[in-house]
């Protein structure tokens, strides 16, 4: 059984017919040729498929495309302003916060989501003061970025890059 959805992906409106069993990740990759989000596990365990979905970070392998009609999707390919990279992406380059690069689009989208969450004052599991403003301490970044696995082991640089990207 098929359904039709309209998605706004990296600023472009796209319509497509999808099998109801098609995940948002597969719709992006196979249906629209948007291959920036990666499939590392297809089970929501690694974070490589993370995008900003209606402004919040989300793994795209865990939900079906048909339920996202009208959604706004920003992938790592759409984070920059067309000419310049997003500051978080620049920070990833400077800090060499990646090696193979496969988890990186997801890390970058997740990082942008983290910065928004912290700016909005959302606490995390390691936030001591739930009433004050959220801080971007290394511990907070580690906790908030732990849904994005990196097998190359770039974590210590990722934490530095996320904090640099906030400045």
């Amino acid at each position, binding site marked *: 059984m098929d359904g039709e959805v309209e998605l706004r992906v990296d600023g472009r409106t796209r319509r497509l017919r999808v099998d109801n069993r098609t995940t948002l990740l*597969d719709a992006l990759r*196979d249906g629209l040729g948007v291959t920036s989000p990666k499939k590392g596990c297809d089970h929501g365990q690694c974070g490589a498929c993370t995008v900003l979905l209606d402004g919040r970070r989300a793994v795209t392998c865990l939900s079906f495309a048909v339920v996202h009609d009208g959604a706004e999707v920003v992938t790592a390919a759409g984070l920059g302003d067309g000419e310049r990279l997003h500051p978080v992406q620049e920070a990833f380059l400077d800090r060499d916060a990646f090696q193979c690069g496969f988890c*990186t689009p997801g890390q970058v989208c997740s990082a942008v989501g983290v910065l928004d969450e912290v700016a909005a004052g959302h606490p995390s599991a390691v936030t001591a003061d739930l009433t004050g403003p959220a801080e971007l301490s290394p511990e907070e970044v580690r906790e908030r970025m732990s849904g994005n696995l990196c097998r190359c082991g770039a974590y210590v640089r990722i934490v530095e890059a996320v904090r640099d990207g906030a400045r």
Partner: protein
Amino acid sequence: MTDLLRPRAMGRSPRRVEGPAKVTGTAPYASDQPVHDPVHAWLVQAEVARGVVTSVDTGRALAEEGVLTVLTPDNAPRLASTEDAELAALQSHDVDFRGQVLAVVVARTPETARHAASLVRVVVEQRPHDVRLSGDRADLYAPEQVNGGFETDTAEGDLAAGLAQAAHVVDRTYTTAWYNNNPLEPHATTAVWSDENLLLYDSTQGVHTTREAVAETFGLSPERVHVISPHVGGGFGAKGTAHVHAILAAMAARALPDVPVKLALTRQQMYSLVGYRTPTIQRVRLGGSADGRLTALAVDAIGQTSRFKEFAEQTAVPARTMYAAPHRRTTHRLAALDVPVPAWMRAPGECPGMFGPEVAMDELAIACGLDPVEFRVRNEPEVEPESGKPFSSRNLVACLREGARRFGWSHRDPTPGARQESGWRVGTGVAASTYPVNRSPGSEANIRFTAPGRYRVEIGAADIGTGTWTSLAQIAADALGVDHGDVELRIGDTRLPKASVAGGSSGITSWGSTVVAAARAFREKFGDRPDDGDETCVAMPESSASDDYAMHAFGAQFAEVRVHVDTGEVRVPRLLGVFAVGRVVNPRLARSQLVGGMTMGLSMALHEHSLLDERFGHVVNHDLAEYHIATNSDVPDVEAHWIEEHDPHTNPMGTKGIGEIGIVGTAAAIVNAAHHATGIRVRDLPLTLDHFVR
């Protein structure tokens, strides 16, 4: 002695040249490559560990709309070569391990292929299987040689006498777990077969090695197989040799000429189809004199292999290099089981093989009443112990001393269990690292001048996250005497000159030596003012350095470990490594390699463990939710440093290879720190909390 290259671009830290493509996700990995109207393959796998396929019913699958073909052992075409049993896809009705591919369904969409695969009914007559590795099996056997071409057993002097004369003896058995490489990118192949030409977009550590394996399996001449792999989402050995999915994708593509067939393994399938590190059982015996010198050293290592194809991890090999001792021996024994075939995983041999001995060294240091840094320094050999060759350079002692200084080791109270902070027992530990300088034969490089002032350097090398795109161009720039920006490097394609595999930390040694030779030949032929289109292609020069020298990188790793008093939870707040790895081509990228290796070592120490269900013969925790790898919050502080090391013997760059040494010794340093924290000696990885709750 080689004519060392003068470093201008080398030693600088340009950012990764492919970095912008990676941080935007636009760098094309195997399954990102755009192909027109692809079809999709899905695998059907064996659900028993041993048996015989008696029937395959594909009727219901074929009746699904959109299913194009189902290949099974009944109808799959015969392959030209089945010499590599791992690649003999669908050639036999025998089931050799749970997870073996028994059918492949090809359909117009991945959803249809997956559903149709669930409709294929395979009947297997089950046979009794045997998947249990243990040290007391009666059928352990000595392989002819072990991975890397090393001798299976070695002996020198009289081990029994050496142990008898020792003032202190450690005789313990250590075990490492079954580990799965788990690169973040699952293996994927897109295959197009047209007019007896095969195009493969593959995720591989060596396009040419994949081409050779596929060509041989199908009986094609290698020129007919074109493999493209510009970016690889991690490999760690799992993509160093061709695995069966590449054959299956090609087979499906041959059945559907001119149609691109996409086959991407699932994370779960990677636990049975792409290799893994064998669990090991290591009996280590060390004898020490009253003044802390080794009188005897023995490592007897046991691992597993699959029954249908042998892989022998060289676990005891690093013990042949590390420490001086007059009486010594190393042995390797294997159990042949009904399991998937083990293969390379980051630092095969050294990674598991430096666990037992480096923990034993800590135990013996304590028995001798010596500081573990000092104890290692005291047992430093003058020449490589077993070969008798001089070292081309060996700076283990410098790494230990510099590491101790940076880590603040001198303030350490050696008493185990002496330090407690806020409910955590705190300890520190040390272990040594080593990795050989490997040089793989078979590379060629082409250099072409493309006006104005640009040099195109072509070699079918791989960048698996190691930084080849950047660092090999830096080497080419110095070899040509031009700026880094004037070099256009092309890698990752079999249309380029042949290159050896990215494995054994041999990439830069092999490809770099080749590129330097090509640059020198180019300058000799065309001088400093070449014409547009001038080009020259040369093969990697021979080197006899390994006949005369033992060439190894060394390192020292220091760990701080906290073990919770009540829960036994183990944390590693700090890791610090100092390495002697020859010249560092690009410090920014090199640091990532070393830190990444140490991080994977931390992951091995604390978490990783593929749990085999012996009743069924499969890894139960076959995904990333249950096979835990270190996450960001597990890794607060990892530092890697290196000492200046000048080695004129390894290659023209003076490099030693840095991709693997970082994971060597980490787990031992953490176990030793945990002992210092708690007084409890763990000899079986991983370092789970049950070891500490008594």
